[in-house]
Each structure stands twice: as C-alpha cells, then as structure tokens.
C-alpha cells in the first residue's frame, strides 16, 4: 500500500475531515434535490456563480473572500430564481430552462472576467476551484486549536443544513412530494423551496471554495441517489445518504493516495477519487439494494416467471387430462403449447417432479394428486375470472382468455370464493367448460 507509508494524521486526517464535512453537508440537501428532480442544480450553480464573482470583484475592488462569497451566493440564488422564472412564465421544461440560465450566466461571467482581468490579475481559479489537498495549509485558531479554515467553514455550513433539515423536515417532506397539498395545508411551499435553494447555493459556494467543484456536484446527487435505492423512508434516506457521503470521502482519499502507486504513479486528485468512490457505492447500492436493487428486482421477476410457468404446466396437464385422460404428454408437447424455452421448461418440470406434483415416467408426465389439486384451483380461478369478465366487465368471450390467464396466478382462495359468489355459483365458464369445484370430491 505505497501511499499509506506517507500517511500523516495532521495532513491526511484534516483532508478527510474536510471531505467528510463537505460530503455530508451537500448530501443532506441533495436528498431533496433528487426527490424534486432537480439533481442538476448543483452543477448549474457551480458554473453560474462566475458573474457573481466577477461582479463582486469589480464592485469591491478586492479579492478578499467575503465579497466574493456573497457575490457567488447571490449568483447561485439567481440561477435558481431565473430557472424557476423561465420555467414558469416561459413554459420551458426544467432541464432546458436550467441549461439556458447557467450557460448564459457562465458566458456573462467570462465576458466580465476578461474585462476585469485587464486591470488586475483576477484569478478565479483560486476562489472557484480550491483544492482539497491544500486544506491543512490555511489554519485559524479556534479556542487555542489550530484548525484548518476550511473545516471551520464547512462545519458551520453542515450545522446550518442539519438544523434546517431537522426543523423543517415535515415541511420539506410535504413540499417535496406534494407541493399543492403543502400549500393548501397552510404553509408556503414556495418559501420552503427558496429557502432550500438559498442553502443549496451557500453550501455549493462554501464547499467548492474549499474543496473544489467536483466534490460538490457529485455529493449533491450520488449519495442521495444511492440511499434512495436502499430505502423508502425519507428519514432513513437522509441518514444513509450522509453516511454514504462520509464513507465515500474516506474511501476516496485513501484510494487517491494508494491506487496510483499500484501503477507506479504518485497520488492523484482526492476530490476526483471521492466522486469515483461515491459512484462505486452507488453502483453497489443500485445492484444489491434490498427492495429496489437491480439484482433483487431481476431475481424476483425470474422467480415469478418460473412460478407462472409451473402454474401453466400443471394447469395445462389438468386440461389435457380433462379432454383426453389417456394422453400422456412429454416435455416437447408441453413446450409446443406453452411456447416456452427448453431450459426453463425442463428445470421447472424437474422442480415439479421433485415436489411430487408430477410423475415422470418414460419421458412422459402425469399429475399426482397434489399436482391435480393445485391445477384444479388454477383452472377454477381461470374460469371464474372468465365468467366474471364476461358478466361484470362487459368483455366478449373471445377476448377474455388472455386477461384471465394473467389474473389466475394472483388469485387466492378468498378471492375465488368472492368471484364464485359474484358469478352466482355457476359451474360453467363462458366457453362452456365446467368450472372445477374448490375441494376434490372423490
């Protein structure tokens, strides 16, 4: 682990602390941006603050931090305002209006900077794109401790954001999910919106002044998106997103100083690697999330598909028995009727045999008593549904089969009884076939 030999708590420790604070502060607000489908706002703001910086410089004639900070925050808020304005009055969609606003402001900033640069060497890079690696270099004394200025600033921002989220959690939640309802229940969703936008602007400016803009853009979206893959509850999502953000800051810095050594390079950009780590954590969450993960969803669908195939097979066997008790179908015959592929069919047949719903002999299959019970219930569901669809949904007898085919797999005993009651205990389906009884009567 090459890079770790040069590990120093005073340097690397502070870098990680700064990264974690920035990540946590941004991720906290990012949750609401993701939920409000405004994920690109962080990116837009970091680009659009340029005219604010230039204007602050031209007005105050100095490069001190405070006017620059105020100018940038104002420009950031204006970005949100203009975006909303163009979207509302101009009826342009959110993404486009954001694109129009931030690129225009950026261009305006460029023109202003060129004008300003003629006079004094204005170096927007050092204000705009601070590097997280330089964190420990600039310290202030706090209660006798030498603490990096960046850490102090980011701590304040984090605490403000945390207080805002805790105090207004209910309002934020309601106005994120249902702004109209929020307004009718008596508080101003617009006000909450702009408060959030202001904090987003402040957080973005404070963070990228300290640690660079890549981290800000990444942390606004990626950890909240990962948390969103893991939970359905807003509170849990907030906590998870902050934890994931901090974790990616830690992993990011460690990998920035170790990974390049494996290829005989020296350490690389910490902010960049923090973004990459967040990305990796997101991929893991997106793949293996317990309810919405891609893998889980895929497996759930596969299982359902197999269960339906098993249903279809036994039901088909039942119908074959019904028509011609002597016919002994083989796998090929079943597949021809069900249009199923070979592998899933043979696997499902094997499964049914093992669970003694089918008996396999000489390449042909017959239903066992348990299999026949299951099949009878399915066929009963199917034919009851057909009856119901004709009687109550006004569908014609030719079109109901497919619909009933879909519904039969999700019909339990209780629903069957209700269907039966609705169809007045008839014992024939619309095609004239008998509806099998619920219990087996020998």
């Amino acid at each position, binding site marked *: 682990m090459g890079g770790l030999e040069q590990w120093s708590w005073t340097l690397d420790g502070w870098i990680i602390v700064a990264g974690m604070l920035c990540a946590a502060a941004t991720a906290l607000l990012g949750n609401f941006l993701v939920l409000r*489908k405004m*994920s690109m706002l962080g990116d837009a703001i970091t680009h659009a603050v340029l005219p604010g910086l230039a204007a602050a410089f031209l007005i105050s004639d100095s490069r001190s931090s405070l006017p620059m900070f105020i100018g940038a925050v104002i420009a950031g808020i204006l970005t949100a305002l203009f975006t909303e304005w163009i979207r509302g009055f101009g009826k342009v969609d959110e993404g486009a209006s954001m694109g129009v606003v931030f690129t225009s402001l950026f261009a305006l900033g460029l023109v202003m900077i*060129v004008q300003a640069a003629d006079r004094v060497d204005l170096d927007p890079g050092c204000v705009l794109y601070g590097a997280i690696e330089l964190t420990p270099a600039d310290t202030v004394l706090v209660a006798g401790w030498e603490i990096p200025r960046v850490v102090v600033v980011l701590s304040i921002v984090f605490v403000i954001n945390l207080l805002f989220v805790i105090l207004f959690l209910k309002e934020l939640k309601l106005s994120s999910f249902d702004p109209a309802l929020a307004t009718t229940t008596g508080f101003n969703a617009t006000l909450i919106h702009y408060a959030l936008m202001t904090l987003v602007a402040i957080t973005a400016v404070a963070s990228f002044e300290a640690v660079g803009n*890549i981290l800000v853009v990444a942390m606004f979206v990626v950890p909240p998106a990962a948390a969103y893959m893991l939970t359905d509850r807003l509170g849990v999502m907030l906590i998870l997103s902050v934890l994931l953000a901090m974790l990616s800051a830690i992993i990011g810095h460690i990998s920035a100083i170790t990974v390049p050594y494996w290829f005989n390079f020296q350490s690389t950009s910490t*902010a960049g690697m923090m973004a990459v780590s967040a990305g990796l954590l997101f991929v893991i969450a997106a793949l293996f999330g317990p309810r919405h993960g891609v893998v889980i969803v895929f497996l759930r669908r596969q299982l359902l598909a197999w269960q339906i195939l098993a249903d279809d097979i036994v039901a088909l066997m039942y119908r074959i028995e019904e028509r011609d008790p002597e016919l002994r179908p083989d796998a090929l015959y079943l597949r021809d009727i069900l249009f199923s592929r070979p592998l899933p069919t043979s696997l499902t047949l094997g499964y049914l045999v093992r669970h003694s719903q089918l008996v396999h002999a000489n390449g042909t299959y017959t239903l066992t008593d348990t299999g026949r019970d299951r099949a009878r219930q399915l066929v009963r569901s199917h034919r009851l549904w057909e009856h119901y669809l004709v009687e109550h949904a006004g569908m014609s007898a030719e079109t109901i089969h497919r619909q009933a085919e879909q519904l039969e797999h999700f019909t339990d005993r209780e629903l069957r009884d209700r269907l039966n009651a609705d169809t007045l205990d008839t014992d024939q389906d619309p095609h004239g076939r008998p509806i099998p009884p619920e219990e087996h009567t020998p």
Partner: protein
Amino acid sequence: MSRGARILLLLMLLLPGPALLAAEGKTVHKQQSITDRSIEWPAWEDWKRVFLMQDYNTRIVILGTTLLGMSAGMIGSFALLRKRALMGDALSHATLPGIAIAFIIASTLGLNGKSLPILLTGAAISGLLGIAGILLIRNLTRLKEDAALGIVLSVFFGAGIALLSIVQQMQTGHAAGLESFIYGKTASMVASDAWLIGGAGLSCVLIALLLYKELTLLCFDEGFADSRGFPVILLDTILMGLVVVVTIIGLQAVGLILMISLLVIPPAAARFWTEKMFWLTFVAVVLGALSGMIGSGMSAIFPNLPSGAMIVLVATTMFLFSMIFGVPRGILVRKYRRYELNTKVNRQHLLRGLYEYLETHQQLPIDVTENVQPVSLSALEQMRSWSLPALKKIIRRAQDERLVTQLSDNRIQLTLSGLKEAARVVHEHRLWELYLITYAEVASSKVDQDADAIEHVLEPEVIAELEVLLVRQSTEGILQSPHAIDLQQPPVTPTVREAT
C-alpha cells in the same frame, strides 16, 4: 495542486478569444493600457473587414461557428423535445476519462498521445459508456432522468480529473494542449477545424434529416412509436450519438459549457415561435447560425469580447426576445390572449346577469320591440362577487360596444343588440348546463358553476352539436334555466386560467 483546478482556470482564461485578434494580426499596434477596460469603438475599417469577411481567419471562425450553430440547433431541437436538454452537459463531462485513458494508453504504447483520432476515439468511447450508464440508471432503477445525468456527469468527471492528475505525472506526458482540446479554442480555429466542424456537423444534420419522421415520432410519442414497431432504443441511441458527435466537435471549437448552450438555447428560443416540429428545427437552425455568426463577428470587431461567450450571449438575447415577443407562445401574446378572454368573460357575465335579473322579475318582453327595463347597479352588484369599480369598468366597456346604456340614476339598460347578445349567452350557458346534467350527471344545484367555467371558451361548432345532442324542449327561444336563479347569493366566479 489538482489538475482540475488548472484546467478549469485555463478554461476560463484561454477559452475567450484574445487569440482571435492575434490571428487577425492587429494586436501589435494596439497595445492597451492595463487600467483600461473600456471597450473601444472600432473604426470603420474594422467593421468593413468583419462584415465583408475580408480577413481569412475571421472568415474561418465565422464560418465554423455558424456551421456549428446550425448543426447544434438541429440536433438540439430533438434533444430538447426528448427532454434531454442537459444530456450534452453530462456527455461532455463523460468524455474526459476517455480522453485521459486514450492519452495514457497511446503514450504507454509509444504513440503520439495527442493525436486527434486517438483522443476522439477515447472521448467517443467514454461518451458512449456515459450514455449507457444514463440509460441503465434510468431504465433499471427508480431514479429519474435528472439523477441519472447528475450521477454520470459527476462520477465520470471525477474519474477524468483523477486520471488527468496521473497523466500529468507521466514521463512522456506533455499533456499541455490536452486541455485546450477539451475546453476549446474558438479563436485559434484554423481551416481544418472549420472543415471538421462543417463535415461532422453536416453529416449529423443529414442523418437527422433522413431519420426526421422517426426521430419526431420518438420525441412526441415514444409509446406509439414502439407499438408501431419502430426500433425505439436504436433511434434513441442514434439521437444521443448525434448529440455526442456535435458536442465533441463543439468542445473543440467553443468549449464545454458554451457548447451545451448552443444545444439548448436556440431550440428553446424557437419553441416560442412555433408549434410545428419542422418549423421548430428550422427556426432553431437559423437562430443557432445567427448566434454563431453574430457572436463571433462581434468578437472580431470588439477584440475584448471573448468569442465563445459572445456567441452564447447573442443566443441568450435571442432567447429572451423570443420568450417575450414570440408568437404564438411568447409571454406577451399569452398575456394578451388572457386579457382578451377575461374581457370576454366579464362582458358575458354582465349580460347574463342583466338578462337573468330581468327574467326573474318578469320584466322581459318575449317579443322585443320597445326599450328594455333598466336594472339598478346595486341589484346587479349583488349577483356576482365583483367589486363596484370592476363592475363599473366592465359596464363602461360594454357601453363602448353599445351593448348597454348607463342611465343617469345608476341604472343600466340593455340595448337591443345587447339583449340579443345576452339572450345568446344565457342560452349557451343553459345548453351547457343541460348537457352537464344529462350526460355528466352533475347535480343541478352545482351545475351553474361548472358551466360557468367552460361556457366562455366553447366553439360555435360545439354549441351546434349540443343543440342537436340535447333534444330541444322547444324549437325556438331561449332555454329555461334548469335550476332556480338566486339573485342574492353570488356564485363563485372561477378565475379564468390561461387558454392554451
């Protein structure tokens, strides 16, 4: 010191085009004082030179940016309608790691890392990976488009910055120049760049024209296109591929952010001028071309104005102009239409109020030959929740149109033409009420408000249809009200929303 910081600094200081004037060879004699940041008014000679494009470099730059504006306008129109306006933003960031990796691999193999085809290949591959990432996130997870864009943008960009930091350490790596490739150099555009932009841009436009019908369908009704057997995913990929190509050629010409604006702003501006897809693309192409032309022209005339940024600001100006003055979707037109509608609604309310008052007081002659009975202002005021000044204004306007006469004792009298118009309005109102009661099963006590909300925007054809649909109680005359008319309790007047 992070590489990113430097690149982004370069982006800001290099991108604008002092080099344009260097290219024109006129910096030398015009040394400006450091304290002077005024924009000097150029001499007539300079205007002429730019306007007539006498200078070779000016010609190249203007031609290149114009072509770029055209192709971006075309492709951007589809992207905008597909709600992919910010796709270019995400993609241009996503090309970064590809460029760095291409450079690293090429240098390790002993090739020239800065050769354009190698870097472009790298950019295209990682751009496509970015697209794949966006599509996967959007289609497989419950996250929406915006989050997919944000994730891909920031993670790829982070990876790119980390890789560029490594490129910087390479022995062979004189990576200088890499960033100008990434972040553009409008001003120093040479003929071959213009040809590249022109060639690639025109091919994109050509592909878009060939697939015009399919892409339009994709933008407006994806589901329908899918059901019609169009290869939706393939078309989507082609569209995004076109965005990638335009973005990459634009990156080199005007830089990252400014390229996005060329994809977004002209189509968004064109949207205010038309409802038709063809005209949308046409106007977007024209606006894009004009932005490129005027922007780089201005930068050529005023050497202190960076060309890339000027192109965008010209486009922004056009956007704002379109947003305000655009017909039929600009703000002014919509405001005017709303005003017109409100006036019409108010007039109809006044006439209906007068008519119903007369009707309930049995002062209405069925066969009108003499003057109609006047109605007092206070009686009218009670019928609706209108304020006195507003009511007076409405009456004044109706008087101008000779629908009513205002008598000296605060009473209002319908003129004969006013009575005719009032009868028509009341009749239509009741037709609609009857329709709601018969077909929409609205309770007759509630039907007044519901009819009120819609009757003002009914077309004559709809009225005719209603007449036929509701078998008329009597063949002539005005319908009876299906509910009791309460003159004391003013019904709630629904605010009229914008007609769209």
